[in-house]
């Protein structure tokens, strides 16, 4: 192959890359608590409230169940953003699960920001079972944030 051909090939590859970037859609993993946020997401669906399809929902018994390693693992495996959502403080099905989670998340959020990871990547929210609209709004906001910071380039394992 001549140099010119190689250069040409690189150019087309580059073109493909750039189109891939513009087509890029963020992938979000949402850990939703079974009793509030999952039901909130369900309500959004039942009420036919539109929200972007970039989210993959993982149902957990309580926001307190979310191990920080879940979040780190998700990022390592190339997810662009993580949302953790639970019942409003005081409404936890297990009385205090989300209170304990809140302390853990406050530290984790600071910790990831401290090492230079964009704060938009990992977000936490409270959504009750009656807040379908609010769930859609929060998801919009999270996706917008992740879109702004682009595809994950830190922490993910390059294969």
């Amino acid at each position, binding site marked *: 192959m001549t140099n010119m051909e190689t250069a040409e090939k690189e150019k087309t590859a580059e073109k493909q890359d750039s189109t891939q970037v513009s087509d890029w859609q963020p992938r979000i993993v949402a850990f939703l608590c079974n009793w509030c946020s999952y039901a909130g997401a369900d309500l959004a669906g039942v009420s036919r409230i539109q929200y972007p399809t970039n989210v993959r929902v993982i149902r957990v018994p309580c926001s307190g169940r979310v191990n920080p390693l879940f979040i780190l693992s998700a990022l390592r495996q190339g997810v662009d953003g993580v949302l953790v959502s639970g019942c409003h403080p005081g409404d936890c099905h297990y009385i205090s699960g989300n209170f304990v989670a809140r302390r853990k998340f406050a530290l*984790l959020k600071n910790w990831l920001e401290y090492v*230079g990871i964009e704060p938009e990547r990992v977000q936490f929210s409270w959504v009750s079972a009656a807040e379908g609209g609010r769930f859609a709004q929060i998801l919009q906001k999270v996706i917008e944030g992740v879109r702004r910071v682009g595809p994950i380039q830190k*922490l993910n394992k390059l294969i």
Partner: protein
Amino acid sequence: MSANVRTSEELKSAARKLFEEGKIDLLIGYERGTLPLRTTPCFITSAEEVDRLVWDGFCSNNLAAYLPHLFSKEGKPKGWQPPKVAIVAKGCDGRSIIGLVKEKQAPRENVIILGVPCRGIVDLKKVLRALDHKEPVSGEAAEDASVIVRLDGGKEIRLGRDEVLFDSCKDCPHPEAPVCDLHVRPEIPEKKAERDFTDVADFEAKSPRERWDYFVREISKCIRCYACRQACPNCYCATCFAEQTQPKWIGVGTDLSEVMIYHLGRIFHQAGRCVDCGACVRACPMSIDLRVFTRKMVKDVKELFGYEAGISVEEPPPLCTFKTDDDQSFITEP
């Protein structure tokens, strides 16, 4: 007689008394190392051996790291009774012991904490750097924690306290174990009122790019030897998440993403438990600047929850409790 020698003598007589009264089966302390300027942890089981004990500015190991294994029931025969253990404790060791008692890794009634007054521990790497990496033939830590070393050929050099002290010792607010069964102290050492977190604040003030680049630069040195974990008294999990296979959080290689998750995870696990003793930093063969990261956790726990690890046995660990009005400014609102 210098303060260190006096403390060593007091320590020996206290240890001898404990053995003679049959109060302990084992004493964990320090003895002279085989090289100058070094001590090594020692395990003493009878009154005849107590003369091996020493105390000076080179006693760097955090001895609390031995306790979880001593008291673990795993692999012990049926009917096994936990031993009675006395342990020589600097301020940071003492705080680690309290942490372990709280986490049920050591029964309080089986541990006798022998508090020694600590003036700060000498960083050998700093000494060797000051000597241009020439091994001294002998040396000692002086009264004021400065170091006197003698080189081959009889040349004597005195290194100042601030030159050779570990960074974690410079602003130590707890030179003595806060909870103590027996004080072995000819006098009370001076202490700083508060930890000085300006290094962490400075790091926070940098741009995200700079912070990330520094993190990558430091962590990419890591060879995954796990020395930081082994030296840490808080890292006693029977199976560390880094080696767990079900689920498999990370692989075993030195791929950057995996090394990062290991350190992010390990340091996060120290939240509310780290006493900033510097054992991980000392143990690191690659001289990774772990301290700027571990201290972030110490600072945040203090600022957010007003908690300091290892001060009292009664106070619940910060992540096992909550307040209804805890800060939640980080929560995403629509």
